[in-house]
Every structure is written in C-alpha cells, then in structure tokens.
C-alpha cells in the first residue's frame, strides 16, 4: 500500500487530482512525489505537502485531514483508494472505475459526473453528490455511490445511470432532472425530489420530509420487483434493509409532468 499524510494543516485549498491509485503503482512510484499539485495559488510537488510511504502494494491510503484537499480520486479508473478521515470537494469526480472508500465525510460534488466504479462514504456527503457541473447536461453516468449518513441537496442531479444509496436523509432536489438511474434514500427524502426528471427512480424508504411536487401523479400501490435485487445488493453493502422494505408495498408517483414525465418516486408505505 501507499500511505500519504499531510505534512501540516493546510491554510489554503489543495487541488490534488494526482491522488489516484494509478500514479502510485510500483512502476511509477519514484516519480509520484514530483507530481504537481496546487496549493492555493501556487503549484508545488506533492512531496512538499504530503509524506509518502510505499511498500509496493496497490491500495492508496490517505490518512489525516484531507477536508481541504480537492479532487481526490478524480478520473480514477482502477484500484482502491481509502481516505482515513474527511475528504474535500470533487472526490472521485469523473471517475470511471475502481473503488474509493472514505471513512469520514465528504464535501460537495463527490462523484460528480462519474462514469463507473464505486464510492463508499461512511459519513455524510455535501451537496451535488454525483451531480452535473453547471452547464453540463449529464451528471452521474454509471457506477455506485453509497453514503451511510445524510446527504445535502441535489444528490444525483441530472444523473443518467447508476445507483446512489443514502443511509440517512437526503436534502432537497434529490434526483432532479434525472434521465435515468436510481436514488435510494433510507432516511427522510427532502422536498422537490425528482423535479424536472424525465426518467429515473427515487426510492423513499424512510418517508417524505414534505409533500411531493404537484407535478408528480399518483400511480399504483404495489411491490416493484426490481427493488428486490436492488435491496439485496444494498443489504450486501451493509445498508439496513428490513423485511418491511422488501415486502412493501410502495406507492408509485410518476413525473415530472413538466418534463417527459416517465420518472418515478416510490414511497414505501408503512402499513
């Protein structure tokens, strides 16, 4: 494994998109310390800001406070990256493969526009989780994001594929403008969920924080079968799936009628 620790407490944000497992493979390890990162308005070598220890194993472990370090795991394609602490903005944005595991919380834009791979976050996540950057039409386009805690607003905005599971509450506008993909919320689902969505699914297992938008129309009360393999997958990932979740039933709301209207919000009915 390669272990990286901050040499000091950062006073300015660090932009370190070089922190991906690919750069720390045994063959390229010698050059890794000389990779450039941005510290505030300066550009400096990675080893100036971080201690790097390596023993040739493939996992990349970041230990310490990385909450001011942005773009960790950006565009990574393979391998395992573990953050033992908090992580800054844009974690795993545009990633295409591999696994990022954060043992703390993450800031905004984690998994933004990701195309594949898995992000696991033990704590909470900031806004725009797996979302689309301003001006972009496509948010998350594949992969899996698993957040144990709460998530701020606009999770899965403009998503096109993939799964986002949220163990706690989801802020407003979850799954807004989605074209496809699935957002599963175990806690309360915030208001305006699915606003402007064409397709895609938001599953509310823990109830609604407020009424759904009036642009969603009530469908039937049933047990959507696709939820069964999905819930099994999430249970295997350690989410608190209960017998009641599996049994349903779920109230189906379809919308947003201001858009294509084929999106759905499935609300678990507690009988």
């Amino acid at each position, binding site marked *: 494994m390669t272990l990286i620790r901050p040499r000091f407490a950062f006073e300015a944000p660090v932009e370190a998109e070089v922190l991906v497992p690919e750069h720390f493979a045994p063959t390229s390890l010698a050059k890794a310390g000389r990779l450039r990162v941005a510290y505030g308005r300066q550009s400096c070598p990675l080893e100036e800001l971080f201690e790097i220890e390596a023993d040739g194993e493939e996992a990349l472990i970041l230990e310490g406070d990385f909450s001011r370090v942005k773009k960790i795991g950006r565009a990574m394609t393979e391998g395992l990256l573990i953050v033992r602490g908090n992580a800054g903005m844009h974690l795993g944005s545009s990633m295409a493969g591999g696994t990022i595991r954060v043992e703390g919380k993450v800031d905004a834009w984690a998994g933004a526009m990701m195309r594949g791979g898995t992000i696991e976050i033990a704590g909470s996540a900031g806004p725009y989780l797996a979302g689309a950057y301003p001006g972009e039409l496509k948010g998350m386009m*594949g992969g899996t994001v698993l957040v144990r805690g709460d998530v701020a607003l606009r999770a899965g905005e403009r998503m096109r*594929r*993939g*799964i986002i599971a949220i163990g706690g509450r989801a802020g407003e506008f979850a799954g807004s403008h989605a074209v*496809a993909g*699935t957002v599963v919320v175990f806690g309360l689902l915030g208001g305006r969920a699915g606003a402007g969505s064409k*397709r895609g*699914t938001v599953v509310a297992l823990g109830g609604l924080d407020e009424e759904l938008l009036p642009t969603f129309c009530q469908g*039937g009360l*049933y*047990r*959507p*079968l*696709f939820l*069964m*393999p*999905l*819930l*099994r*997958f999430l249970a295997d990932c350690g989410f608190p799936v209960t017998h009641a979740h*599996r049994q349903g039933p779920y109230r189906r709301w379809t919308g947003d009628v201001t858009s294509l209207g*084929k999106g759905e919000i499935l609300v678990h009915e507690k009988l």
Partner: protein
Amino acid sequence: MLFRGVEIERTYAEAFKMWGTRLVITAETEGWAQVAAEAASGFAISVIGCGCEAGIEGPVPPEKTPDGRPGVAVLLFASSRKDLEKQLVGRVGQGIMTCATTACFSGLDGDETVPVGGKLRYFGDGHQGSKVIDGRRYWRIPVMDGEFLVEDRFAMQRSVGGGNFLILADSAAAALEAAQSAVTAMRSVKGTILPFPGGVVRSGSKVGSRYKFLSASTNSAYCPSLRSLVDSELPPEVQAVYEIVIDGLDEAAVARAMKVGIEAAARPGVVRISAGNYGGSLGQFQFHLQEILSEEEGGDRS
C-alpha cells in the same frame, strides 16, 4: 459386468454437444413459480420435434434467488445459439411473463449470452425501463399485476444432450418400477434434466425409417412385440424396455446422473441395462456404462 444381479452391458451412450442455459423463475409463492416453470418447459421433449429440450431442475430457496422470493430452476437445451435464443424468448415471453407474479433471471454466469429481456421489453410499448444492479441489467415490463422483471441477457454454456440408458426387464411392471426409481434418484443431480414425460421414454427411436419423409422411427430392435420380425437386441426373458434420457450442463453432471440412475434401476426384475448409440459416428460424447458405474462417488469425468 453384474451389478446387484443385473447385467450391465459393455456399451456406451452416445451424446451430443448442445447449448444449455438455466432460468431461475421466481414468484410470490413456490406454487406460482412451479406453474410458470411447467409452462416454460412444456412440449420440450426433443430438439427434433420441439426445437429444444427443457425440464425443471428443481426448487430454488428464497435466499438463493435474486429477488429473495421462492424460485424454480429450469434447464433448457438447444442445438445452436440461435435456436436457444429463439426458444428462450418464446418460452419466457409466453410461459413466464404471462404467469401471475413471476420474474425470470439467468441462472448461469458467463460471457456467452443471448438477449431475452432485451427482446421482450418491447411488450412494454414504451413504458418499459431498465435497471443495472450489481453489474446485471434487468428490464421492468409493466403488466396488469405490477411489473414483470426479466434479466436482459441470459448466459449459456456448451452442454451435453442425449445421455441415456435402457432398462430391460422381465415384465412391464418391473421395467416401469425400475424406471421410476431411477428418475426419482436422478432428479437430485444438479445440472441435469430428464426431458421426456415423467423422465421416462417409452418410444425410443432409431435413425431413419422405411419412409422417406421420416428421419427417425421406432427402435424396433428393442420392441418386444417385434422380436420375431426384426434383429432383436432383447434376451428371451425381456418383456419391456424403458429408456432414460439425460441432458446436462456438462459431461460430469450427465455421468453422475447416469450412475445414480443405473444404481437405482438395478432392481429385481431388471435383466439388463444397456444404452443407445450410433456406433460412435454421430455424437461427440460417449458414456461407457461399466466405467461410469465403477467411478467413485462424486468423480468428475471431465
């Protein structure tokens, strides 16, 4: 060779390469899953007359099905990938999608796949949708009791069709009893099915006939009533013959099933156990009866 007083003929069963797949059908109850499984595997006795051979492999407990509901596994075999795809789409669409509360999943893993859900989805008339979960794509097709969930592609593998043995007995009752006993024992062998009705074949066939339009006809050498008219293979005391045909996902599974079946069929009244072959010129696999019977339990022939 004698086994429990029954002669095991020094011969072999000749079997063929096929493409096989496993469907896992789930439903709200095992009963409904069974209904769908029976519908999907109906009229699938022989590739020649039915296009494929299929049968129920057995129940799948909820903890082993993708959706956590009770399930039944069906094996389906065909001569080519194209035939398998055609049969799968037809049988899943007609036999399973139409059956209350069901869902259908691929029961095999592998790179060789054929589209099933991807073709059936059009039944949703634009309201269908897909979900990719844990690397597998499923299609959700709206139906009148909710939705039919079907996997996009089903994996298939090279398989073996036409493993067989013949039970020659001194009475029709003894032959049937031995055949039933064999079938009961063989049903427990995973990865195999017995595609004929009740697992037993009464109208064994030979290649060709005296009629130009007919490619197979009754196995006259094993028909007791024709003993005086043809070159019979039957000893004088034999009054009835039943055949057991086995299809399996691999050679080892077919061999295991044959061994279990022959052991169970070796009962009082059975005179000889033989097998059907074409002189080794047609099939790619040969299952030698005496070798199979001599193998250790759990032995793998592949």
